[in-house]
């Protein structure tokens, strides 16, 4: 017996026909890649949508926060009812993503990434950072780097955004590109109680367009990793400016005094 006979319209019955036409797209590899998404806010919403549509089916989603109405200028999965009920962001996305792909598993973890067991991050093949604070970024960066897990970190600030791709042990990490201003922001945020925001933080402008671009780049990089196309990864950071709609790829050299690289 050879292959089944071709039937008219077969190409349009295959959900991933258009993905397979890239040639390099490996449906099984993408489906089986264990993805950790840290943060279920604006970037987390868009990232989960893109992951599901791209064929990823094994996703862990970490966020300790609940939905508020002001999320709704940029968060696809959240509704006014979710905000009224103060539903957990991670649970809302996990529930509603099923409408996009019934065979997908999004496992929500309603807590801070820092509070999950030490080996949690290491159980994944790739980490997508969709965070809003440096403390959590440093935690994910340190654990992912130590365990050799690629980390794709996204960030936005108004109409600008960035994606940094960290592939241990070959590339620089997030800490390599940081300086005292990062640590000052981190310290302010956690200086009063040590466990949550207790000081006034101005709300930051945020829109769905910049968010969509940054999260799409993150998922594009995850697809490259899942399909064994590491030579095509961003080296090391893509910086996007929505004011002028321009993007640059910027090298982040390994910092000689970075603690993660000293360990090598």
């Amino acid at each position, binding site marked *: 017996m050879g292959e089944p006979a071709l039937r008219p319209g077969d190409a349009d019955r295959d959900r991933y026909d258009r993905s397979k036409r890239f040639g390099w797209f490996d449906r099984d590899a993408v489906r089986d890649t264990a993805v950790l998404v840290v943060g279920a806010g604006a*970037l987390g919403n868009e990232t989960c949508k893109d992951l599901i549509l791209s064929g990823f089916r094994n996703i862990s989603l970490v966020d300790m926060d609940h939905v508020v109405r002001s999320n709704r200028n940029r968060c696809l999965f959240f509704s006014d009812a979710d905000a009224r009920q103060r539903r957990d962001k991670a649970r809302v996305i996990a529930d509603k993503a099923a409408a996009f792909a019934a065979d997908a598993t999004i496992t929500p973890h309603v807590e801070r990434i820092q509070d999950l067991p030490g080996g949690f991050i290491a159980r994944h093949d790739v980490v997508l950072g969709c965070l809003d604070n440096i403390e959590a970024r440093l935690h994910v960066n340190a654990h992912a780097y130590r365990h050799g897990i690629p980390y794709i970190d996204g960030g936005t600030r108004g109409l600008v955004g960035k994606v940094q791709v960290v592939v241990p042990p070959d590339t620089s990490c997030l800490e390599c590109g940081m300086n005292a201003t990062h640590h000052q922001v981190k310290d302010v945020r956690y200086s009063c109680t040590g466990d949550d925001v207790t000081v006034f933080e101005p709300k930051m402008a945020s829109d769905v367009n910049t968010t969509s671009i940054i999260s799409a780049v993150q998922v594009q990089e995850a697809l490259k990793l899942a399909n064994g196309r590491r030579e095509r990864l961003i080296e090391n950071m893509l910086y996007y400016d929505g004011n002028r709609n321009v993007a640059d790829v910027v090298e982040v050299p390994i910092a000689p005094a970075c603690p993660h690289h000293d360990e090598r």
Partner: protein
Amino acid sequence: MKITVKDAETGSTIDMDVDEDNTIGEVVESSATYWNKDPGAYVIRFGKQQLGGRTSIGGTTIQEGDVVELIPDPTGGR
């Protein structure tokens, strides 16, 4: 040596005298303070490189008269 720091958000520039021992972190802090920048993380970009705070001027290819850029580091996402 004298370099120029450019505020990427406003286009303003300031000349700065630096030694080889000065770090990129010191350049960030001095210029962000000078321009009274909003609280947040900032980085220095030189050409197609983002330089880490612990890196010394002598450890880079920055030379007399070069222009480096102070840019906000986007750390939001919610």
